[in-house]
């Protein structure tokens, strides 16, 4: 398990570097923040590609971050607080992950 998480952190870190840089350039360099509004998101989410892009970024970043937090908790807390904190972390992170996934997949432009 630790081997898998170690490998995941390295591969996801490299992927996130490109995904996050792409996101940064699209949102802050190629487009001004004054142009980014509801219509911008609607236009962007017409293409399945951008939904996939955001979904990848969300899952990789959340799992990468949650695993990092798990390692920190493991390093700095002792039982029973260690186990309890990890459970709280997983539940909170899982909820945010599901919420984000739900928004990305189910987003439909409002009629009119």
């Amino acid at each position, binding site marked *: 398990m*630790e*081997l898998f*998480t*170690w*490998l995941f952190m390295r591969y996801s870190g490299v992927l996130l570097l490109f995904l996050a840089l792409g996101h940064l350039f699209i949102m802050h360099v190629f487009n001004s923040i004054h142009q980014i509004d509801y219509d911008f998101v609607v236009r962007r989410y017409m293409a399945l590609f951008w939904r996939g892009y955001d979904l990848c970024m969300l899952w990789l970043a959340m799992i990468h971050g949650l695993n990092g937090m798990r*390692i920190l908790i*493991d*390093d*700095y807390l002792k039982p029973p607080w260690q186990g309890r904190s990890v459970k709280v972390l997983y539940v909170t992170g899982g909820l945010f992950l599901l919420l984000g996934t739900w928004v990305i997949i189910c987003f439909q432009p409002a009629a009119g």
Partner: protein
Amino acid sequence: MEVTFQLLRFDPLKDRQPHWETYRVELEPTDRVLDGLEAIKGQMDGTLAYRRSCAHGVCGSDAMIINGRNRLACKALVKNMKEPIRIEPMRGFKVLKDFVVDMGPFFEKYRAVKPYLIEKEARPQKERLQSQEERERFDDTTKCILCGACTTSCPSFWFNAGYVGPAAIVQAHRFIFDSRDGGAEERLSVLNNQEGVWRCRTVFNCVEACPRGINVTRAIGEVKKVIAKGGR
């Protein structure tokens, strides 16, 4: 020259907490910190306790924190030290008295990685031949003298005494990469868990602390890679 030492003294029969004591001794600039300790113990306070054996950087008995850094007292020259020279026992081990720590758990972990040749084939009639390249592969980790300076400089070990520690991983590395050895799998199974190599956070304290100049973090990284690859 007069040199000032501040020593963190602790006698479990008398003290509830460790406390600092100051000593001033006459030394030559070319003397080592160990010579200072010998002078204090021999001429001023015979109750001072520390380990030393060869006194020449080979046996690894006299590792201690000297001016905030893990070093061997027999390799640290007085002229290179800022005064007062502050000495503490190594962190993470139970202090038995002054600078004498309980090395028992350290050697338990050392034994856990099976630091001896495990034969993979029938014993040859003559010696087991090895090329220069094959020997070079693990040369760095043969230098370890088991002083414990790396393990006790590691924050992961300070907080989690269950961590096998850099020294044991270095010893495992020495055999895992030895072409004559057949016990890599047994050792890797000991190291492939949360208290094994994965507890290493690449802080590099061990590299700074090692009195033999072993690139400990690199050795740990190589063991991680071998586990990831599924074998040597």
